[in-house]
C-alpha cells in the first residue's frame, strides 16, 4: 500500500503543469510579502499600541484629536474624505466611522456604530492584509488541486487502466492509494504554504494585534468581514477554510475524474464546477447563499462565507463548510471508486 501511495504521489508531482503551478503559487505568495513595508508596519503597531483595549467614546474623541488633519492636508486632499487618504490605518478607521469628510466628529457614539459589540482595538491592518494574501494563495491552491487531481482516474482511461484493472490490487488498494494521494498531494502543498505564510507573518508582524477586532479597521477593510471577531479567530477560520476548500475541490474533482474519459475534459469540467458558482448573483444575506456559500470557491474566497452570520461568539456560519467538505470528500471517493473499478475498458 505504501509503495502504491508513493507511486501515485510521484505521478502527481512529476507532472509539469503541477510543478509550474507550485512555482506560480510561490511567486504570488512571495510578491504579497515583498509589497509590505517594515517601517510602516512598525509605525502602525506603535500607533495601535496607544489605544489598545476596548473601544469607547473617550478613545474615539482622543483619536479624532490625535489624527485631526491639518488645514494644509485638507487643502492638498482637495475635499476627499480623510478616511480615504489617511496617513495611518488608525486615522482611516476612526475617520471612516466617526468623522465627516473635513475630519470633524459626525456625532456618532461607539454604540451608534457598533451596537453592543465590544470592539477590541489593536493592530489588525497587517493581519487583514495577510488574509487577502491568503485568499489569492487559496484560490491558486484550489486550482492547483484541480490540476493535481483531474488526471488521477481520467489519466488512466488513456490506456493504463487495462493493466491496473487486471492486476491483483487494481480495484482495491490501487484506488485507495489513488484517492489517498489525490488528497495528500494538495493538502501537503496547502500545509507547506500555510506554514510558510504563518512563519513569514509572525516574523513580520509578531503576535501583536491577533486579539484585535477586524471591525475597527481602515476603510479598505470596512465590511471585509462585518462581524465582531478577532484577527486570530479570522485567521483560524481562514486556515480551516483553505483546507476545507481544497478537500471539497479534490472530492468533486475525483468524481469528475472518474466519470470523464480524458484528463483534459476532467480538468475543464472540474475548473468550471469550481469557478461557475462565483458568477451567480446571490448576495450573502439571501437564504440561498447559505447553500451556495458552502461550495469550495467560497471557502477559498473566504470573506463572503465569513460574512453570512455569527451563530454565537467565535462560532460563525462558516463552520458548516467543514462538514460540507467532508461530505464532498466522501462522495468523491465513493463515486471515484465506483466508476473506476466498474468501468469497461475501451
Amino acid at each position: 500500500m505504501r509503495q502504491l501511495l508513493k507511486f501515485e504521489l510521484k505521478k502527481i508531482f512529476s507532472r509539469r503543469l503541477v510543478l509550474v503551478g507550485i512555482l506560480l503559487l510561490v511567486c504570488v505568495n512571495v510578491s504579497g510579502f515583498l509589497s509590505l513595508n517594515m517601517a510602516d508596519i512598525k509605525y502602525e503597531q506603535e500607533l495601535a499600541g496607544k489605544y489598545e483595549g476596548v473601544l469607547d467614546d473617550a478613545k474615539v474623541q482622543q483619536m479624532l484629536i490625535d489624527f485631526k488633519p491639518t488645514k494644509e492636508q485638507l487643502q492638498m486632499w482637495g475635499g476627499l474624505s480623510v478616511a480615504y487618504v489617511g496617513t495611518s490605518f488608525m486615522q482611516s478607521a476612526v475617520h471612516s466611522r466617526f468623522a465627516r469628510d473635513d475630519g470633524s466628529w459626525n456625532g456618532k457614539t461607539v454604540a451608534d456604530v457598533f451596537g453592543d459589540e465590544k470592539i477590541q482595538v489593536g493592530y489588525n491592518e497587517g493581519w487583514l492584509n495577510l488574509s487577502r494574501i491568503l485568499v489569492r494563495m487559496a484560490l491558486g491552491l484550489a486550482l492547483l488541486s484541480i490540476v493535481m487531481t483531474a488526471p488521477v482516474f481520467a489519466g488512466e482511461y488513456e490506456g493504463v487502466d487495462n493493466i491496473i484493472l487486471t492486476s491483483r490490487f487494481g480495484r482495491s488498494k490501487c484506488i485507495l492509494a489513488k484517492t489517498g494521494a489525490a488528497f495528500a498531494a494538495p493538502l501537503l502543498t496547502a500545509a507547506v504554504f500555510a506554514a510558510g505564510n504563518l512563519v513569514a507573518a509572525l516574523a513580520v508582524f509578531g503576535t501583536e494585534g491577533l486579539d484585535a477586532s477586524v471591525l475597527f479597521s481602515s476603510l479598505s477593510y470596512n465590511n471585509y468581514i462585518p462581524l465582531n471577531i478577532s484577527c486570530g479567530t479570522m485567521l483560524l477560520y481562514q486556515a480551516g477554510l483553505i483546507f476545507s476548500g481544497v478537500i471539497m475541490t479534490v472530492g468533486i474533482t475525483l468524481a469528475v475524474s472518474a466519470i470523464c474519459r480524458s484528463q483534459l475534459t476532467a480538468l475543464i469540467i472540474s475548473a468550471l464546477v469550481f469557478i461557475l458558482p462565483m458568477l451567480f448573483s446571490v448576495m450573502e444575506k439571501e437564504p440561498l447563499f447559505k447553500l451556495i456559500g458552502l461550495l469550495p470557491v467560497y471557502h477559498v474566497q473566504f470573506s463572503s462565507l465569513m460574512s453570512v452570520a455569527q451563530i454565537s461568539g467565535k462560532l460563525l456560519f462558516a463552520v458548516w463548510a467543514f462538514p460540507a467538505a467532508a461530505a464532498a470528500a466522501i462522495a468523491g471517493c465513493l463515486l471515484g471508486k465506483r466508476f473506476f473499478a466498474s468501468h469497461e475498458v475501451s
Partner: protein
Amino acid sequence: MKLQIHNLTKKYGTKTAVDHMSFTVENGVYGLLGANGAGKTTLMRLICGIQRPTAGKITLDGQEVSGMGEEYCALLGYLPQNCAFYPDFTALDFLLYVCALKGIEAKNAGKRSRLLLREVGLEKEQKQKIKTFSGGMKQRLGIAQAMLNNPGILILDEPTAGLDPRERIRFRNLISAFSKNRIVILSTHIVSDIEFIAGEIMMMKNGRLLKTGCTGEITAEMLGKVWECTLPTVQAEKLAVKYPVSNMRNTEDGNTVLRIISPQKPLDGAKTVQPNLEDLYLNYFKEEKRDETAFEI
C-alpha cells in the same frame, strides 16, 4: 488449470463482437488468429474481466471467474493492444509500480523487474524515461509487465506488433520457456509468429470460432488446394486477379512464382505444395477487406 468459456457473447449496441463462443483451454500456448474486427481483442478483454459479457460465463477449474476477484487477477498477466505507460516513469519504476499493483513484495519486486528487463533486452535502458522509448521498446516493456507475477494465465494481445525480427525471435523463445504449466493466449496478425509459438491455433471470424487445432490439423483441409507455378510476370498478374494468391515472388529470369489457393488445378504445370497457416488464413479471409499487416511475415 482449465479455463472454460461457456456460450460467451458480447454485444456493442447492435454489433456482436463475440457470438456465443464456447471452448476450453488448458496449459499450453493458444494463438488467436483472425482479421481485424474478428473479436479477438474483445474475447481477451472478457477473459481478463475488463469487459463484462452480454451473456455466457467464464470459469476457471469450475469456478466462475467474475466471482473470484483478486484471486483470479493474481493469476493473470495481460498485455493489452497498444499498451500505455506513464511517460515520465523510467522502465524500472514502471515495473516496480506494476509489482506493487500485483502485490509482489517490495524485496522481490526489484529483482523480478530487473530479471524481466534483461529477458526483454531492456536492461541497459532500465533507468531511461519511457517517453524516450521507441515503439518496439515499449512493446517489450509491456511484455515484461505482463509476466511480472509469473501468471498462470498470460493473455497477450498483439505482442509482436512493432518488434523487429530479432526481437520477435527473442519473444518467441521467452514465451516458449515461460509457457510450461500455464495457459498462454496470444493474438497476432503475424501468422508466422502463431505458427512458431502456438501449440494450438484458434481461428476467429465475426465473433465466432471457426477452427481450432494444431497447425498440422487445421491446415490439413487445405491439402491439395495450394498450388505453386512459375509463369512470365504478365501472365502471373492476370492469374493473380482470378485466384487468391498467398505469395508472389519474382525470379531473376523475369518470371514470377505464384502460390495459389484453389480447389482445382489452376493451370497446367501447377504443382500442389504443403499448405501452411497463411494459406488457410487467406482461404478463410479472402472475402474480408485485405489488411496489409495480415500477411506480414
